[in-house]
């Protein structure tokens, strides 16, 4: 599986994502600068966490307008897998590649801790190696992760099996609608989530629950 990690000014999880990808695929991902206009030929594009463009205007709003995003959108339309983690999820909603928006956390606090999640959907390239209903723990680190969409959109996401991860009951860290932590696009090749699977791919970092996500991608895309 060939992958690329997009690097924006202010990204700070790009190297975490690259380390996880290299460790699990055995291949270094291409690190692509935001001002480049063309992606290399890859199976997976990762939009990493961080504070691209200093979160100016809205989180992810500037990144959504960057040069490279045009090509990412075109590739996604053709079926290339795109994974947006944290700030990457915010970018995907800002571009309209995923529905809804991420609002300021309901209690206004930046939240940085491990959270319990339930894997709700395993019919996807991102989660096929998990079991449906499996409980996992990923860390979160964000100030704007409160997932919002109107009821029609939420019903549709649930009805189409596009809610991939939900915060465990009583462990919703940001006020997200219906405890939603991660969703899929209509074609199911674009996923965004607020928690950080790339930070739990090595026992030294306190957990390995994220490994199955990357293994799912390797199995689906290789």
């Amino acid at each position: 599986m060939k992958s690329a990690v997009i690097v924006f000014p202010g990204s700070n999880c790009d190297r975490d994502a690259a380390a996880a990808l290299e460790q699990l695929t055995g291949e270094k991902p291409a690190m692509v600068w935001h001002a480049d206009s063309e992606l290399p030929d890859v199976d997976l594009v990762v939009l990493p966490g961080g504070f691209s463009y200093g979160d100016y205007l809205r989180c992810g709003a500037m990144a959504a307008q960057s040069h490279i995003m045009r090509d990412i959108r075109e590739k996604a339309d053709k079926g290339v897998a795109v994974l947006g983690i944290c700030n990457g999820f915010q970018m995907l909603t800002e571009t309209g590649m995923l529905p809804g928006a991420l609002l300021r956390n309901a209690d206004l606090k930046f939240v940085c801790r491990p959270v319990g999640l339930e894997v709700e959907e395993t019919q996807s390239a991102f989660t096929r190696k998990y079991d449906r209903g499996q409980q996992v723990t990923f860390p979160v680190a964000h100030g704007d992760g409160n997932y919002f969409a109107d009821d029609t959109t939420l019903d549709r996401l649930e009805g189409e099996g596009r809610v991939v991860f939900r915060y465990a009951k009583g462990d919703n860290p940001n006020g997200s609608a219906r405890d939603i932590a991660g969703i899929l696009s209509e074609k199911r090749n674009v996923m965004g989530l607020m928690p950080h699977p790339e930070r739990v791919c090595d026992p030294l970092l306190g957990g390995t629950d994220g490994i199955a996500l990357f293994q799912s991608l390797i199995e689906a895309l290789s």
Partner: protein
Amino acid sequence: MKARVFVTLKNGVLDPQGKAIGNALHGLGFSQVGEVRQGKVIDLELSEPDAAKARAGVKEMCEKLLANTVIEKYEIELLQ
């Protein structure tokens, strides 16, 4: 021509910052304050002299970048 854009959260979208401001105002003794909603103001200098064209241009800017219309609404004010 100058334009001023007001961007605020749509009705029904939770505004925790507005809520916190409201609580702080109550703490200061302003008991007359009800709900508080906050937003942002963006001032633009435009080279377009025609008001209708200027407004149309700013509307497009709002739709494409200045506001996220999933959660925000905007108002445009033209200042001569």
